[in-house]
């Protein structure tokens, strides 16, 4: 029998070509909470955030909702942004809010890729996603170097 289970859901909504709104939901046997976070695409800055707690373990936990505002101004492009969120939103607020926020932030570039590739794939479903993704990576140096699938341009990995 499963004794513990956690589900995390992230949705990316493009309000316009410069802003993506993330909806993040966490539900597990102990906790249930969600956030909505607007991110500026050009510089990765968190422009707005709100959240709510539905299930938590003690009456002080909901105070962490206000601490979410400390994420405004953090850029998802800055080195160590996730560690900063763990410290400033997690330790000073709620670790689980930090986990949702970081998950949303980590989806930023995949969401951008999906957004940019959708019109092409819709028009030609047989188009190679791999070729389209490689071409997209070539055009977005800010994403390169983050893992084995997104090597720095010129390193001979994806090219």
């Amino acid at each position, binding site marked *: *029998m*499963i*004794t*513990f*289970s*956690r*589900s*995390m*859901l*992230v*949705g*990316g*909504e*493009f*309000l316009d070509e410069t802003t993506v709104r993330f*909806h993040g939901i966490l539900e*597990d*046997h*102990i906790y249930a909470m969600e956030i909505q976070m607007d991110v500026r695409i050009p510089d990765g800055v968190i422009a707005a955030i709100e959240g709510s707690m539905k299930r938590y*373990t*003690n009456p*002080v*936990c909901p*105070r*962490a909702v206000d*601490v979410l505002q400390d994420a405004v101004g953090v850029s998802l492009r800055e080195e160590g942004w996730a560690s900063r969120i763990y410290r400033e939103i*997690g*330790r*000073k*607020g*709620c*670790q689980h809010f930090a986990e949702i926020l970081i*998950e949303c932030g*980590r*989806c930023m570039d*995949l*969401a951008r*890729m*999906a*957004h940019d590739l*959708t019109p092409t794939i819709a028009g030609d479903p047989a188009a190679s*996603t*791999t070729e*389209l*993704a*490689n071409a997209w990576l070539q055009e977005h140096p800010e994403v390169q*170097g*983050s*893992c*084995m*699938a*997104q*090597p*720095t341009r010129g390193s001979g*990995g*994806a090219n």
Partner: protein
Amino acid sequence: MTLEFMRNKVVEVEPIDDRGLSVHWRLKDSMLEAGILIKVRVPDLEIVEAEARVDRSPHEQCASAPELVKRIVGVRVSQGLRKIVRGLIGGASGCSELTEGVLECCTAVILHYTVPQIRIGERLTEEQLLEARRALLESNPRMAGSCIAFAPDSPLMQEPGL
């Protein structure tokens, strides 16, 4: 407005017997689909088996990512875990999704042990809860300052002895 990207992650812990836990992790989103299965020995929480798969990805390199996960065998779910796992399978030549997946599996193992404690706490009186909190902080001093509930100015920490 409609969503243009959607991600769904699920992690589940299941006791195998009184000496082990099985942890399944799955990720499915608009671009990726992957899974991890780890087995953890009880009570020392050493990872004794680890396997992964990448079923869908826009990047060809991801096909070799599952092999990385085997490196975590022998690691214990304990302090310093994040740094160890990121060093073994993360970084520019690793896989960020499987790294986070492994860490989420390990978090789930910890929370598997937390659930029964919280259920016990739900049936305690205020006085018993206070005593339980004192005992928790004594056995886990790192909990102090770990979140807003255990911050120095939290009402929960103003009680005598905390």
